[in-house]
Each structure stands twice: as C-alpha cells, then as structure tokens.
C-alpha cells in the first residue's frame, strides 16, 4: 500500500512547478499550461483524500469531475482569447498585452 503522504508530496511539487510556469512564462499559452498543471495537482489531492480518508462517500470524485469540467471551459475561453488577441495585436507575449495599463 502506498502511503497517503507520497501522493500529497507529488501533488505539492506539481502544484509549485505549475505555479512557477504560470508566473514566469512569457508566452500566454505557457501560462495556461501552468494553470492546467496546478489544476491537475489539486485533482490528485482530491482523489487521494477520497481514497484514503472517506472511500465510502464519493464527494472527492465528484469534486474532481467538476474541476475537470471547469478546466475544460477555462481552457476553451482562454485559448479563444489568446487567438483573438493574436489576430488583433500579432503577439502572444504576456508583457505586450498592456493596452489596459497606464
């Protein structure tokens, strides 16, 4: 049997790698990939807690399903925004998307 803390350690590392990607990437699609990594780390945590702490109640699995649903919606909208910005401004670099700054 695998100890619960192993899953939590892997999920924590994945989350921090995703956080670094979301904060440090210049490409907007790279930022989105970092966010996807963070959501996956959260899902590993939800499923691990479901399996090890309350395996008879299915709340953990249902939560993970909804996280995946919201991640799909977020990816679709985010990529549509990036494509639209690229069409108007010819850039996908986050630093160049500063038209609402002053």
């Amino acid at each position: 049997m695998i100890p619960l803390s192993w899953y939590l350690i892997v999920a924590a590392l994945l989350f921090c790698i995703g956080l670094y990607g979301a904060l440090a990437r210049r490409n907007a699609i790279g930022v989105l990939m970092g966010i996807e990594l963070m959501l996956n780390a959260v899902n590993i945590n939800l499923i691990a807690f479901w399996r090890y702490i309350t395996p008879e109640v299915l709340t953990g699995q249902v939560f993970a399903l909804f996280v995946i649903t919201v991640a799909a919606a977020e990816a679709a909208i985010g990529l549509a925004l990036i494509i639209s910005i690229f069409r108007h401004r010819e850039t996908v670099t986050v630093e160049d998307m500063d038209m609402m700054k002053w």
Partner: protein
Amino acid sequence: MTLVQIVFLVLAVAAIGSAVGVVTSKNIFYSALLLIACLFMVAGFYVLLEAPFLAAVQVLIYVGAIAVLIIFAVMLTENLMVRRRAWNEQWWVALVVAAALAAVLLYVVVTAQWQVSAAATPGDAIAALGQSLMSTYVLPFEVASVLLLMALIGAIIIAREEKEEQR
C-alpha cells in the same frame, strides 16, 4: 518495497520530470507535448488510487480535448522556428515564491498526522458515482452543463473572424 510502490515512483518521477520540462522548455510546442505526457502520468495515479472512471475522464478530456486545443492554439499563433526567451524578467521572484510554497506544503504534508481510513472502495464505484451525480449533486451537475454551454458559445464569439462589412 512492493511492485505498486515501484510503479508509483516511476509515475511520480515521470510526472515531475515532464512538468519541469513543460515550464522550462524554450519551444512552446515541446511544452505542449510534455504536458500530454504529464497528464497521462496523472491518469496513472488515478488508476493506482482505484478511480478508473476518473482515469478515463482524464485521458478523454485532458489528453483528448484540452491538450489538442492547446496544440491547435500553439500552431495558430506562434512562429515555432523563432526561439525566444521562455521566461520574463521576474522569473527569479516566481522561483522564490514557488520554492517557498513548496517548502511550506512539504513541511505540512510530512509532519501532519493523517487519519487514514482502512475501508475499501465500494465495489460498484462507477454506478454509485452516477447515482450521486443524479441525486445528491444534481444541482451542480446542471450548473456545470450551463457553464459548458456558455463556454462553448463564448469561445465561438470571441475567436470568430470578424467580417469587413460587419465592423
């Protein structure tokens, strides 16, 4: 060390390694391919955790839909032949923040006493999951369908090419 633990360690090393590749690769297309590998490893974790339905959903939605969507966006926007800097000027701040968060999380995870339950998973977990989606969680289930419809319409409206005469 049992076979399951060895499988877990292999999956963990592959997942962490490909995740590091996702955030460090200079070519955004390689990042997208490594992201697919990482998502497959996460599906492997779900299999080890006895959640086969979640593993199937992970492969279908993340690998089948989201990763393909990301690759499409990469191909539609970036000139892949031009190598640019991967990170912005604040990458070291991001590194400090991520490392600090990792230290805190690892400290908590290692020192906490988890109340692990010895109960086995229900035999018909997939049937129970479907029933709970249709009874206890029917409201979030319906809200999720509305959310997906909004995302579908919104993505089409935002990404659609505007015609000259409509401007």
